[in-house]
Structure formats: structure tokens, C-alpha cells
């Protein structure tokens, strides 16, 4: 079984500035289990939960402490976006709603059941098809195949951003990118060559991350 990362030491390091610590602590706060989507509709949110699990299974990294990536994406859709979108897609929130509903509809037309109820192989093939721009729905409030290719790129990006920016993930993978230096002493890194982890940097607990 994968050990659970202990992020308390990590977050209290004096190699983290107070501003960065506050950001990471805030992000480390768990999402309530009964989180109700504020941006996406309940149906598309249900699909997003299932899609993010298929896209990025978390067990080998976080054990039983998986992040609610769907909820985090829904929350980030409410905030400031990052200054661009694909011209061929509608505005972000509309694109997310339409993209997820396109996945639902494709699941029904291809297999007669809801996306979460398909077999893992069926879900995988469906995801691969939309990611490669091979499937979509040419209809209002849905995305056609070329649009699905663009939107799944956003879906993949948002999922990975939520994951890699989480302190528990950074801690489990032994990532020291948040530890550039404290406020009083800006330490940076004394060691930058291979195999020269400094004492304050986290040690990876995940097998894949270790040499």
C-alpha cells in the first residue's frame, strides 16, 4: 500500500515564504465531501468526477487520500481564468459544460449507458477518441470532434494543474519547487546537480519517483 504523505513538516519548512505557505495551506484544506458544484450542472459534474478518475488515477501517489479534482476544477472555473482560450471554443464555462455533456451523449449513443457505467475499456476508448479529435457531436450546446480535441487539452491541463500544485502531491513525489527560500533568508538551492538532495527537501515516497 502507498504510504500517506505527511505534509505538516513540509509546510512548516523555513525554506518556504510566508506568502507561499499561506497559499499551500489554503490549497491543502480538503474539499467538503458533500461538495455541490457551483459552476457545472450536477450531471456534467458527475461525468467530470468519473473522467478525472480515468484520466489521472491517484492511488499510487496519494493512497486513500485522493483529491477531489472535479470539485477543484469546478471551483477554479469560478475564479479568474488565465487570460486566453481557444478561438474555436465557446467561453470557458460553456465549453466545460458542453464538453462533458458531449461525453455523456457519446456514451449513450455508442453503448446505451451513462459514461460512469461503461467498462473501463469502453471509457478509455471514448476518452482517446475525443482527445484525438475523432469523436464529437455537431449540435448546439455540444462540441464537435475538432472542438473536443481542443477542449480535452484544457481538461487534461486543468486536471494536471490541480494535481501537481497540491502540497500533498509535491510532498509525495519529493518535489521541492515551493521551497525556493524563506522571507528572512532567501536560501535558494546550494545543490543543483544530480543525486544531491538537500536535507530540507522532501524525499519521494512514491516508487516511480525514486531512482
Amino acid at each position, binding site marked *: 500500500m502507498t504510504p500517506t504523505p505527511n505534509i505538516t513538516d513540509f509546510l512548516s519548512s523555513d525554506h518556504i*515564504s510566508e*506568502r*507561499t505557505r499561506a*497559499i*499551500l495551506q489554503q490549497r491543502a484544506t480538503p474539499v467538503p465531501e458533500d461538495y455541490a458544484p457551483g459552476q457545472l450542472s450536477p450531471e456534467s459534474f458527475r461525468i467530470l468526477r468519473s473522467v478525472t478518475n*480515468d*484520466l*489521472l*488515477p491517484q492511488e*499510487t*501517489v496519494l493512497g486513500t487520500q485522493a483529491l477531489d479534482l472535479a470539485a477543484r476544477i469546478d471551483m477554479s472555473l469560478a475564479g479568474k*481564468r*488565465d*487570460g*486566453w*482560450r*481557444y*478561438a*474555436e471554443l465557446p467561453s470557458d464555462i460553456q465549453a466545460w459544460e458542453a464538453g462533458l455533456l458531449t461525453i455523456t451523449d457519446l456514451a449513450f449513443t455508442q453503448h446505451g449507458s451513462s459514461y460512469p457505467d461503461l467498462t473501463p475499456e469502453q471509457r*478509455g476508448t471514448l*476518452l482517446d477518441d475525443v*482527445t*484525438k479529435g475523432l469523436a464529437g457531436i455537431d449540435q448546439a450546446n455540444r462540441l464537435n470532434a475538432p472542438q473536443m480535441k*481542443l477542449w480535452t*487539452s484544457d481538461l*487534461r*491541463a486543468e*486536471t*494536471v*494543474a490541480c*494535481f*501537481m*500544485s497540491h502540497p500533498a502531491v*509535491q510532498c509525495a*513525489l*519529493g*518535489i*521541492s*519547487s*515551493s521551497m*525556493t*527560500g524563506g*522571507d528572512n533568508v*532567501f*536560501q*535558494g*538551492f*546550494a545543490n*543543483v*546537480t*544530480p*543525486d*544531491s*538532495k538537500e536535507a530540507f*527537501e522532501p524525499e*519521494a515516497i*512514491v516508487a*516511480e*519517483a525514486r*531512482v
Partner: protein
Amino acid sequence: MNMETAMRHYANTDCVDVVVVGAGAGGSPLAAELARHGKSVVVLEAGPRFRPEGHTPDEPVANELYWLNERLSGGESPQAFGGNNSGTGLGGSLLHYGAFMPRIDARDFYLHRETGKGFDWPFGLETLLPYIERVESFIGVSGPAQYPWDAKRRYAYAPPPANSAALRMREGCEAVGLKHADGPAAVITRDIEQPHFGTRHACANCGACHQGCRNGAKSGTDNTWLPMAVAYGAELRDGCFVHDIERDQAGRIIAVVYLRDGKQHRQRCAALVLAAGAVETPRLLLHTGLANSSGQVGENYMTHVSTQVWGTFDQDMRPNRGYPSLTITEDLVRPKDADFVGGYLVQSLGMMPVTWGLNMVRGTTIRGQSLTDALSRYNRSAGIGINGECLPRPENRVSLSDETDATGMRKPRIDHSYGPNELAMHNHAARTLSDIWKAAGAQDIRVIDRAAHMSGTCRMGTDGSSCVVDPVGRSFDIENLWICDHSVFPSATAANPALAIMALSLRTAEAMLAA
């Protein structure tokens, strides 16, 4: 820094000598140079004033440094902007740039003369070189004692230490027979007192250049040109989004109109410099309908072919540590076996985890446990990447979309499609970089197809029917309008652009003083 307390202020009703729109690579050196020569200068910058100590390596929050008004990305190779987008604030994109500071190769100024493709600069390296050297010496650039591709060149600072990726690239280059060196980096490696700014500390190898340098080691404009501009009496006004330009009967510019704190203001001026970057400068001109008798405003949009190759090593690489992109090779500026014109520079790549993860998911289709495993190998990863010539093409442009944003202006649409030359260069780089990386011991090699930087949308040249500004940056149409940013580049060249943008900026300032 004492920029705020000591700063001179002008009234909107004062007719200042020069208004500069944008405080990035293009606007800042010119503002300093004009002020130093006694001109009254107001710099209007849309973004905020950041405190260097306040920068955070946390990537989602560090996107406060990016331009955040929505841009629409179209074409067959639409750019995923995000962290790759231009920046905002006093300092512009240099707040989050990578500080890689190569000079343009002399051949790249005249690619058309050499190959019949692309568009030539109206002058060559010898014209720009004195300005390049001034920029390097004023802002602080590190580099090797001997630069293999230019024996005469000297750098004032020793290079920062080579990180894991830089060391691996040295090995890979040696194995495949390419020369390599520590690249020029706009990073200082000993503490200095920067004139008009104060103490800048030596690089601490923190690796977060793209999230903002916290100790002043990275040479931007916020810790060099802008404090100098203030010291000589320029006013820097942050949070000012310029959206209109007023002219008199004769067509001369008399004022600019901007939004600050939701209110509209009007600043009178005798001359206007647009330095808002290669998207916002043409956007402003298209929006106001000015300076476009050539029909070239927004056209010729260019990027750099920025193919990356990543791999996994049997070592703890920790790619977030150290100055990210130290090793360079210039051996491929004209590859012998090229099936394309122009060439590219190669650099080693460290990277912060979110940016790295995003490049990987956007550039591949892996999913499921393989994606989790690939992300889990962050600490064992290192990369190499290129910046390569991108030819101007009629398909590639900045235009106004049908959607309006909160400023009342139509959102810019950027169309970007690779042509045959870019595709051939990408394929060549993918092969060559993979060979280097295999020779360096990398496994799980992954090629990421991407483009970076944005330029060329108000190009300079000698002919007013095919260019927007003349060889010193003055509008062919409006005598007191100048453009001074990445938009004036006639060709992309293989070099990362900031050094040449700043050098051109000093040259434009000189022309304005002489005018």
C-alpha cells in the same frame, strides 16, 4: 527600491513630451533614455507594481504575472498561452521571462537575401551591436569566459552553476559531436549596487525565474531601466489601461485615453510610443484605425518554433533547481542537413512541476496510470528545447474578434499555423534533440510540439507600403507615433528576443531625441 517615494508626478493636463504605453522590454529602456536626456515622460502600464520579495514560486498564483484579459487563440497550431503568454505590470513580460540572452546571429538579419524566404531587417548586426553591448552591460548578463561561436564577446558575470539538465546536455552534445557552452543569461552571479535601484543579490539558484525573481538577480526592467527612468524624472503610472488615442485636425496625436480604477483619464502628450507588446500594440491600432495605410498592422505574426524533448534519467534530477536553461549550442543555426531555411538554438531545460506537467499533457495523449506514472517521475526528468526561426505567413495574424471585453475593446484573436518550414524544423529538432538526449542516457523520450513568443505584427522596414514603421520605429503614417516592442521585428530570428527588443528601444530613443 525608492521608486515610489521619489517619483515625479505630472498632471493629465500637462502636455508631456512623451507618453509610453507599456513598461516591458520595449518601453522601459526608451523611457529611461528619454528621461535621462531631459524629456518629460509618463509611462502608462496596464498591470500592477509587484514587489520582488512578494513573488511566489507557487505556479497557479504566479499567473498574476501574466496578461489576463482574454485572448482568443486560433489557427491550425493554436498557441496554448497561459504561462507562455506575455506578462503585465511594471517590468512587462520580463517579470516572468527565462532570462536566456543570446544575441541574434548576423546571418539571421538577412535570411531573405540568403534564401529567398522570409523578410530582411533594414540593417544588420553591426548596426545593433553597440546597443546590444550597452544593454548587456547595464542590466547585467552572465556568460562563459570564451564564447565558442564569437571569440570577441565578453560577459561581465560568471555563469551560474550548471544544474542537472545542463550537465546532461553537455554530455549529450559531446556524444553527438556538437559544441556546447554555458549560455548567456540575464542573471547576475555576484551582489551589486544597481544604479538608481539598490542592492541586487547574486542568483541563489532557486529555479523560479518564470515565477518572478525574489532577490533581484534576474535582470529585468523593474530593477534596471525603470528605476533609472524614475531617477531622471519619468513618472510610472501602473494600473492604466490605454484604450484610445486622440488626434488633432492635422492627424497628429495629442493625447491618450486610459482606464484607471474604473475611471477614464486623458493624458496630453507631444509624442506617443506604443510598447504594449506584439498583441496589444496592433490591437490598439486596429481598434483606433490608426497607422495602418500599409494594411500590415497585425499581419506577419511570428513565434519561435519551440520544440522540447524530455526524458527520464536514472538519477535524482530535481528539475526545479538551479537556473533553468544554462547550456546552449549554436551549432544548429544553419544545420548542414536542413530541409528548411534558417535554424535554431538549443538550450537545456529545467522546469517547475505544473508548467512541466501542462506541457506534457497538452503535448501528448497519455492517460490513466501511465499519466500518473509519468507525472510521478518529475524528479527524474530533464529536458532540452529550441528556439527556431518562424517565417511570416499570411495566415498568421492578430485581428479583432467579435467579442468585446470589460475595457470596451474587441478581444484580440491570434491565428497561428505552422507552415512547411516550421514543420520541417520541428521534425529536424525532434530527431536531433532525441539523439542528444538518448546519448545523455535519457529514457521515455517525449517530444513536445510547441511554439513560443509573439512578434512581427507592426514590422519595420524601409518601404511604407509593406511595413508599419521605419527602420528606427517611427510610424510611416503619423509623424509623432513610434512603436517600440516585439511587434516591429521583421523576422523572428533564432534568438530569444528580449536583448534585441531592448537594444532597438535604445536606438528608437536616440532617433526620437534627434527628431
